[in-house]
């Protein structure tokens, strides 16, 4: 199942994706729907914990961003923007505190899908039961991407993680708002197109900086892609070709920019300082290990 197949599916695309996947796995469609419904509850739970909690992560680099934004005045009068950003960071700050989250597709990018999907749903007063289909489509988009590349920062840079999550979220929001399968897949392609080349350069090697703020940005990016696709704007490059291009860029990316903390933000003077403090034991989360 590639993106072209999903694009040609009868509406809603999520039902078609679910049937194909269950034929392969032998799982019952209803069981998958129920499990996805449970995962929406898990996502909501992590959002709620994250919006209330401003305890620092193990390193102290993040922890207060979601609550800080949520409690701040909405100066730009953009409530959807605030909601999407705060939800996304809430999930990733819970993640950085070793809290319970739903990987989507990875833990480092776990804030994007709930940020965009729950953010839009709450902004418009849509019930959680209506989110099951869109979340299934999100998973189908992720699966189609994973056919062409490993979804991990170590293998393909951040584009593989946050790009995939943004594509998944963009398609989900598009289906939620009544967009066609074609529009949903083009939303995913537009999101990917504008993430290609993004490196994975976590400061100190932790899933904190820039991961937490990056989830806020790419949750908005996903909503933006959905907005374009819902207006029938399309990716000029066919969606599957975009995925191939991303995989190719991932292969060309030097290892220093693939989760090793040997390049980018991780190697700035401040990034190196964090690394030194970690190595000296001052910030070491694992004092028991010699």
């Amino acid at each position, binding site marked *: 199942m590639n993106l072209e197949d999903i694009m040609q599916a009868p509406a809603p695309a999520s039902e078609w994706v679910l049937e194909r996947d269950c034929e392969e796995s032998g799982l019952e469609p209803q069981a*998958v729907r129920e499990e996805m419904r449970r995962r929406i509850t898990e996502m909501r739970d992590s959002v709620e914990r994250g919006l209330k909690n401003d305890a620092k992560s193990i390193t102290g680099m993040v922890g207060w961003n979601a609550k800080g934004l949520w409690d701040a005045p909405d100066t730009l009068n953009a409530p959807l923007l605030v909601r999407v950003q705060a939800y996304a960071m809430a999930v990733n700050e819970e993640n950085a505190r070793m809290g*319970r*989250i739903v*990987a989507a597709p990875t*833990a480092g990018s776990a804030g994007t*899908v709930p940020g965009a999907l729950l953010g839009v749903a709450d902004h418009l007063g849509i019930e959680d039961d209506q989110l099951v289909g869109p979340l299934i489509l999100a998973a189908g988009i992720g699966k189609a991407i994973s056919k062409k590349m490993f979804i991990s920062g*170590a293998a393909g840079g951040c584009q593989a993680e946050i790009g995939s999550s943004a594509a998944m979220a963009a398609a989900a929001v598009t289906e939620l708002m009544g967009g066609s399968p074609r529009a949903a897949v083009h939303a995913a392609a537009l999101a990917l197109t504008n993430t290609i080349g993004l490196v994975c350069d976590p400061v100190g*090697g932790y899933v904190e900086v820039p991961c937490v703020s990056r989830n806020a940005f790419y949750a908005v990016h996903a909503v933006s892609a959905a907005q374009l696709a819902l207006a029938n704007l399309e990716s000029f490059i066919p969606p599957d070709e975009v995925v191939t291009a991303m995989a190719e860029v991932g292969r060309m990316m030097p290892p220093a920019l693939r989760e090793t903390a040997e390049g980018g933000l991780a190697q700035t003077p401040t990034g190196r300082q964090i690394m030194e403090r970690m190595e000296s034991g001052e910030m070491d989360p694992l004092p028991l290990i010699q």
Partner: protein
Amino acid sequence: MTLLDMVGPVMVGPSSSHTAGACRIGLAAHHLLGEAPRHAEIGLHASFAKTGRGHGTHFALVAGLLGYAPDDPRLPDSFGHARAAGLSFDFEHIELADVHPNTARIRLRGDSSSIELIASSTGGGVIVVSSINGSAVSISAAYPTLVLQYADRPGILARITTAIAAEEINIATLSCTRDRRGGSALVAIEMDGPGVHPGVLETFLRYPSMQWVQLMPKLMDG
């Protein structure tokens, strides 16, 4: 990989590859040992060695060895739980050839047996076990998997597959390797559905040349 692996797993943070995947690698070792683990030598390769500390990889691997799933809230405190359970462990940095950057080698010992496995975490919590007791395998943990080691003799594989067929279980994948003709052979069989009844293991152990049998349950959500 199914839809539930793409939006999922539900897990303790912070990294699907370095935390959830690492926990599943530990879990694979836990099930392959098949008894309470007493000591683990854990070798971390490349990215696991370099950035594991920042991702709770060590906690996650030990949690898996104790039998905890990736969403178990005890995961961050696994070192304390290991001490209480009588499991000791050492970590070292290792370099393996031609493997994924997120790879671990675990040598695990119980009271009566020991195993060695090499496994990689390839992203999103997905793992691949690439070696068991020195024999190359490719186990996804997406299926219940039978692993059998026996002295290389004619007809053993036929007896094993006949017994599986008798339970009306379909074999999804099967790999068989041996160290040399007439030496030690290792078979890994991934099965559709719930897999064979654990009672069948007793039957396999009665085959004359059988040395070791374990049943690893499905570790993925899908």
